[in-house]
């Protein structure tokens, strides 16, 4: 290893005397991958429904949808958007932006839509 790298202590040593179980012992090389649970799986395993609803848990402290009317802003400029283009589904503020919207390639349209999770997702 290069002297620079060693000096910066960039890389963690593989063996550390204060550890009871070393990393290489816990996860020996070549063994099947350890799959970590994703948050969704953790929450499922948590079985929150079985707890009493009065008790706070990770799921039920989530905030509800907003009561205020949804704010509509132009996807491209960020101005208030009174209009909506039925072809691309983009919101736009004025005629100039509309021209731009219509000239956008589909890839960009989808990326703009993806910003507010409105893009077409193929599964």
């Amino acid at each position, binding site marked *: *290893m290069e002297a620079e790298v060693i000096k910066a202590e960039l890389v*963690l040593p593989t063996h*550390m005397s204060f550890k009871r179980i070393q990393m290489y012992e816990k996860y020996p090389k070549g063994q099947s*991958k350890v799959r970590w649970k994703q948050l969704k799986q953790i929450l499922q395993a948590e079985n929150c429904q079985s707890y009493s609803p009065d008790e706070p848990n990770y799921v039920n402290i989530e905030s509800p949808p907003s009561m205020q009317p949804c704010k509509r802003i132009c996807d491209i400029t960020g101005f208030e958007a009174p209009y909506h283009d039925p072809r691309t589904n983009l919101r736009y503020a004025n005629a100039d932006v509309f021209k731009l919207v219509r000239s956008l390639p589909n890839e960009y349209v989808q990326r703009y839509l993806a910003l507010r999770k409105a893009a077409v997702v193929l599964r």
Partner: protein
Amino acid sequence: MPFISKIQRQTDYNRFPPSTPIVIDNGASYFRIGWAGETEPRVIFRNIVQRPRHKSTGETVTIVGDHDPALLKYFDCTRSGPRSAFDSNVVFQFSTLHLIGWVQMDHGYIDKFTALIRSASACVEQIDHPILITECVCNPVYSRSKMAELLFETYGVRSVAFGVDAVFSYKYNQLHGICEKDGLAICPGFTTTHVIPFVDGEPVYKGCCRTNIGGYHITDYLKQLLSLKYPHHMARFTWEKVEDLKMEHCYIAPDYALEAQLFQKGGKEAEDKTRCWQLPWVPLPTEEPPSEEEIARKAAIRERQGQRLREMAEAKRSSRINELENQLHGLEFLLQQLGQVQEEDIPSFLSETGYASKQEIELTLTKVTQSLRKAKGEPKPEQAEHEEKADSCTSDKYPLINVPDNMLTPDQLKEKKRQIFLKTTTEGRQRAKQKRVEEELERERKTQQDEERRLENPQLYLEQMHTKYKELYEKIELRKRLKTNGGHTNGSNSGGVGRGERLNAAQRERMRLLTTAAFDRGKGEDTFGAKDEDWQLYKLMGKDNDDDDDGADEDEAELARVSSRLQEIDPTFVPKLEPTVSQPTITEVPHVRPLTKEDFQIVLGVERFRCPEILFHPNLVGIDQVGLDEMTGVSIRRLPSKDKALENRLTSSVFMTGGCSLFPGINERLEAGIQMLRPCGSPIKVARALDPVLDAWRGASLYAANSRFHQQTFSRADYYEKGEDWLRRYQVRYTL
């Protein structure tokens, strides 16, 4: 400047007795670790792990935190980018070789910390210190137990305590008089935003609420917006850079709509608020326009070259004329000689010259004279006269035509056929000529009529001509456009018809025919071509543009006539440029603008407040949850006691901590937002933490330094004895 973890080797690890707890603020963005009782954490680094491959040795190594990017050149990072172990503030990955662990307690954090803490000489065999580590509100028990397991099993830690970072921050600031014992802690963090109500100095988790939005989303939004706005500079927008931009330039608008209108209208105020990031740019060396001399020199060269070409052409022409004249003389001489030679000697005489008969010589002679005339550039009419002269002696020229076939020998029959052919062609030519003459006359007559009309009423005539010209011009123009447009779609062939590109009528018809041919035959096997009628299709298709081409030619001729006439009588008339000439010059040479300084500027206008706005309206990025201001209302509603006085006490001590509360203007906005939710006249006070980023660690450090801290920890024995359900309910008391 991007944050680079400043990690220094700690040399005083052995100075701390085993009773001194280690305090860890395990945040989603940064990891802070230090000793209880101190005011600053010892080590701070970004909570990410990378497992690149070392280029020269090929081994996979573990790198925790962020580093000087220059050092990463020794590693191959293509296989694994930096990863975080957090998903909505919950640690979900606990060390792995492949998935890259939860920035590895196992082999990241504590390792790093302790490895750095230990002095070079004294080797640490055992971590004796109790550990206080932060977690999110209502951490799932799985996450908690894994963390405890890790600490106990791998590190052999004696005792552990879990606490919530926002609460520690609140308590710390309560001590400094920023907030009261009853209040609301709002913590917009890296991936989530929490609101925690406090009653009597203790958090009431029942009144908690969490929206899954935070600094990460803001940075991501800004990054996406910028790369969509400046696709050419996409590579510039690295995560670190955009994070810097966000921290430096973003602010919360007091009223989004008003602020946006300000920018929409433009003007000075908007300009002042617009920030501009100039990317490194070196102006291209500008090409100086050529000097007069240069132009003159070039013109002279061109002229010389033209002259040479002309001379060459002239020389070629004269040589050809010479040649032809020689041939002509030769032929004439031959004919003269032939006249002198006896009739029966002709074949023997001609056999030397290569000609078969006298007629052949004459034919060649006429041909040569014609080419000579052509070469000399003399007009054709003489030829016509010549032909006419020839006509007069038709009967002499075609003696065999009127003789019946049965009276002729086979040779003569052949000759007769030839003569008939010659005669018909000559006659046809004559007829065409006749027609031309008639047309000429007709045209003359028309011009005369025109002239008369013009003389009658010059003004009206001129107007009529103009309108006619215009009509014709437009007609031709339209046809051309249709044609070229159609040609376009033909050219791009099967690439589909793009937006705005229409087929012309003929092509549409063809498409229709093709589709009917392809699909109208039902689902059976392809029988196209079995019937003879099928092939008629191609005839129909082949017609295409031919029909209107004749019309087009006529129109064009008419247009030329009208425009020349107009030029004659109207000195102001300027014929429109031929579109086929002018258009290509425009399209073929697209004006390539040289890149300027402005092309390398990243302008931050609306983005400055559009991105942080998602804290208040998560809707903007498609997260259907309440924003910061409404969260306070939700939180108060969720509290079990409906005590007006308590609610007023809560709103009069709203406290903000967490990295995202650093945006300028967030206090005012939040205050206004809460005002709208609360009854008129409610006391509202919003305060920001002394240091929204580090106060959580400081609070935790203070808490752990308390002599009664050990009552709140649990040991390994407790952990195994009491079981999961206990761990789920485990809660530290924050007031000691």
